């Protein structure tokens, strides 16, 4: 009994002591920032890409990364994921699937990720296609396929392999009845191997976004012959390919355990990439750590090297950690308040303008988004043709002016509206907080907003049915870096679902016309003019009121360097990462 008493006292004492140490140590953390040693040498070169056809000079940022003398054994990455519909193109639309696909597959073209990160115009550069020629009328694309590239299956990349891969992507898109989302594929007349290392694609009509699309997830190149061997019920290996990699890129899938872990191994036969950068680690381990507080501790302790998808509060906390640093880059996601133009109040153009003036954009950015992003009022993003700061930053918070307009329109005491709040977030903007902030913001302009609880399923269900009476919030993203994406997906879809056609048929027709013109035009200057006009029309008329372009933020241990973002993949480009061990 004596021993028992002693042990009990010891236990209580130790617990209290540990707790006290924990509390006091937190307050006395020495804030020393160990900034990683810069190993990047940047130079901008003028690179001509098939000058006789494209007739323009493409600037490409080439980043020379010090070659890894030895490969780091492993880079542990914190991520959040649940299941996968597929890493193998064209399936899989989640951020995680995009992120992984771009590490294990490559396209005929590629985006120059450092340029995209900077927000510079990102014209696609040759990748698995060494070069390309476009016919004068823009309907025939001839790709010269890069020699010496091998799939991780051991098969060589040839013209025929590229044809099979593209045809397979189209086949699976048709299988999934998704052709409407990729309407341009119905315009394909033929895709043929016109030589051992040459592919020719003929289209019915000129289609300018093609090169950007070929760098996006759905049309990355796979070893279709290998997938065919694993066909089930005529799916061309889609089910098997969901979690097996048959690409050419720097990494390949080693193992996948749903909701737990994905391990990618270095492709030892990697050809080097369009920018000559190879991976710096033997393996990447992506672990599903859903709770931010747990992930914070893990990176602070050094158990993970890179943390993706952290919430803004955790990132601010991590900024105080001496062995961790964070960096942000503009993502391809925007935050939007959605309202149907058939709504009693939004149908009035003047009140619609007043609603724009009743939103505190800067406040939303600093308070809700915690500074992670920028005020941006258009779905066409910086770096895309058609982007114009005069359009995307035209509104400012003027509640008194908004109030006056509303009064002039017959509502001297303002009006009431409901705001649908729901779970979710666009970047660092948690929907519930965004809606609460909007409520306070509108109040100053005399708009009495009542928050009602909703779900994503209810909100989007009402948008589809055309029955949305309230205002809501949603993140909208682009999956390929071309203005055709926001134009074709957003201008002619959500904008129409939100009643533009019923509100103003002339504008609706003009939008459709501009989308078609933008796709067909091959001259970039002319495309810029078309998309600029479309941009202005969308911002002035569509029910998607874009407020912010959110930033993706990554936390890294200080022994990690060269964090280069790949915004179109919602990711880092993991080839660049170097780890000092």
């Amino acid at each position: 009994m004596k021993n028992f008493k002693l042990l009990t006292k010891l236990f209580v004492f130790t617990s209290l002591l540990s707790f006290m140490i924990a509390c006091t140590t937190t307050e006395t953390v020495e804030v020393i920032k160990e900034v990683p040693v810069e190993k990047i040498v940047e130079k901008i070169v003028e690179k001509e890409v098939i000058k006789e056809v494209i007739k323009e000079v493409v600037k490409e940022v080439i980043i020379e990364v010090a070659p890894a003398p030895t490969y780091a054994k492993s880079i542990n990455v914190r991520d959040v994921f649940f299941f996968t519909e597929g890493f193998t193109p064209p399936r899989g639309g989640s951020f995680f699937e995009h992120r992984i696909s771009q590490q294990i597959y490559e396209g005929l073209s590629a985006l120059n990720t450092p340029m995209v990160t900077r927000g510079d115009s990102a014209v696609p550069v040759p990748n698995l296609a060494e070069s390309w020629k476009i016919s004068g009328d823009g309907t025939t694309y001839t790709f010269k396929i890069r020699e010496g590239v091998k799939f991780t299956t051991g098969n060589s990349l040839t013209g025929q392999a590229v044809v099979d891969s593209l045809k397979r992507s189209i086949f699976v898109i048709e299988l999934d009845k998704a052709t409407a989302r990729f309407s341009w594929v119905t315009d394909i007349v033929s895709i043929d191997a016109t030589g051992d290392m040459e592919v020719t694609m003929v289209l019915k009509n000129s289609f300018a976004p093609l090169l950007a699309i070929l760098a996006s997830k759905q049309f990355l190149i796979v070893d279709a012959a290998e997938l065919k061997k694993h066909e089930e019920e005529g799916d061309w290996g889609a089910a098997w390919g969901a979690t097996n990699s048959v690409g050419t890129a720097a990494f390949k899938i080693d193992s996948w355990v749903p909701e737990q872990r994905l391990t990618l191994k270095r492709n030892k036969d990697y050809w080097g990439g369009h920018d000559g950068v190879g991976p710096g680690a033997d393996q990447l381990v992506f672990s599903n750590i859903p709770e931010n507080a747990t992930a914070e501790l893990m990176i602070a302790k050094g158990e993970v090297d890179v943390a993706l998808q952290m919430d803004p509060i955790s990132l601010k906390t991590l900024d105080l950690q001496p062995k961790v640093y964070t960096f942000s880059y503009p993502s391809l996601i925007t935050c939007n308040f959605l309202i149907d133009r058939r709504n009693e109040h939004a149908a009035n153009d003047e009140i619609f303008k007043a609603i724009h003036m009743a939103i505190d954009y800067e406040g939303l950015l600093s308070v809700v988004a915690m500074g992670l992003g920028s005020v941006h009022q258009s779905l066409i993003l910086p770096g895309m043709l058609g982007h114009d700061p005069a359009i995307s930053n035209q509104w400012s918070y003027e509640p008194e002016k908004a109030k006056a307009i509303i009064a002039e329109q017959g509502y001297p005491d303002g009006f009431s509206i409901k705001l649908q709040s729901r779970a979710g977030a666009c970047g660092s903007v948690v929907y519930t907080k965004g809606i609460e902030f909007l409520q306070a913001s509108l109040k100053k302009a005399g708009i009495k907003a009542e928050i009602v609880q909703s779900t994503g399923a209810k909100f989007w269900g009402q948008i589809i049915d055309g029955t949305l009476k309230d205002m809501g919030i949603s993140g909208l993203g682009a999956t390929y870096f071309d203005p055709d994406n926001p134009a074709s997906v957003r201008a002619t879809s959500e904008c129409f679902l939100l009643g533009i056609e019923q509100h103003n048929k002339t504008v609706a027709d003009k939008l459709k016309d501009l989308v078609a013109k933008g796709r067909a035009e091959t001259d970039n200057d002319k495309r810029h003019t078309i998309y600029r006009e479309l941009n202005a029309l969308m911002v002035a008329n569509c029910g998607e009121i874009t407020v912010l372009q959110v930033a993706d933020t990554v936390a890294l241990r200080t022994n990690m360097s060269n964090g280069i973002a790949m915004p179109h993949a919602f990711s880092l480009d993991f080839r660049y990462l170097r780890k000092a061990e």
Partner: protein
Amino acid sequence: MNIGKFILRRLSLQIFVLIGLTMFTFILMFGLPGDPAALLFSAGGIAAGMDEYHAFRAKWGLDLPMWKQYLNFVGNLIRGDMGTSLVTRAPIIDNLRAYFPATIELAFVSFIFATVMGIPLGVISALKRNSWIDHAIRAVSLFGVSMPIFWLAIIMLIIFYYYLGIVPSSQRIDLDMEIPKHITGFYLIDTIITGYWDGFFNAVHHLMLPSFILGFSVVGLLARVTRASILEVISQDYVRTARSKGLQEKTVIGRHVMRNALIPTITILGLLVGGLLSGAVLTETIFAWPGVGRFAVQSIMLLDRLAVVDVTILIGVAFSTANMIVDIVVAFLDPRIRY
């Protein structure tokens, strides 16, 4: 009625429980507003993919009226088909096979921990009534019952993982260790079967903190119920009689007090199984534990109705089975109860 007949009767009653469960959960899920297909398609630009959206609704039977969907579901369930998850696109039975063992393993170890700690603490507390030990145990019990799991888990992680480094942070096995080959889904069993001993010890290590957190609130409850029960029994006439017969205190407590005092505790244990299974959601989230709780949460968020109903059925079956076992054990302990 003998015990065999009792079990048969309970099992047959479970069928009605299951029908009630499925119907109730199904109606509840349909009561939630919204269209799951709309949510799934919202990310890619809905209008651009309206054909795809309608084809998806037709393929998954989402365009059918609720009663028809329910009858289809029950019909498939009778044939052993629990349906396909809208979210994972895999048969739900496969998802449950993947996720449920992790939850059971965690809940089982928590249950053992709670029982081994809670009952003795309750006994000691009762026997040392009003001593400082009693006060300490009652304080710890109150702490366990009152502290939110979320808060406690984070504090424990900060102390024991971040500062002391004596427990792992999350998941079922270290990030740099190979995940055991899936045989049963229970890491402790699979590692033994495959002789993966490093994996076994690592899995045990990973179970320590989450099972402590999950079990801690139950420890408090058990200790308090046991203490109250013993204090009630210890003042009964038959205990006084036993003492007056000159029996040793050990025998009085062991044979006369404990046997009667444990009946309410054991009844509570049955109820706690359900609590441990369904209450694992928070613990699973904090410790990145790939269990059925997180699967259920994800399914609810994405309005994956069949998956939610199936998880409810599974937990319901586990809960009622645990209670049936408790009834049998109580019958052995309490001579007044005979089936």
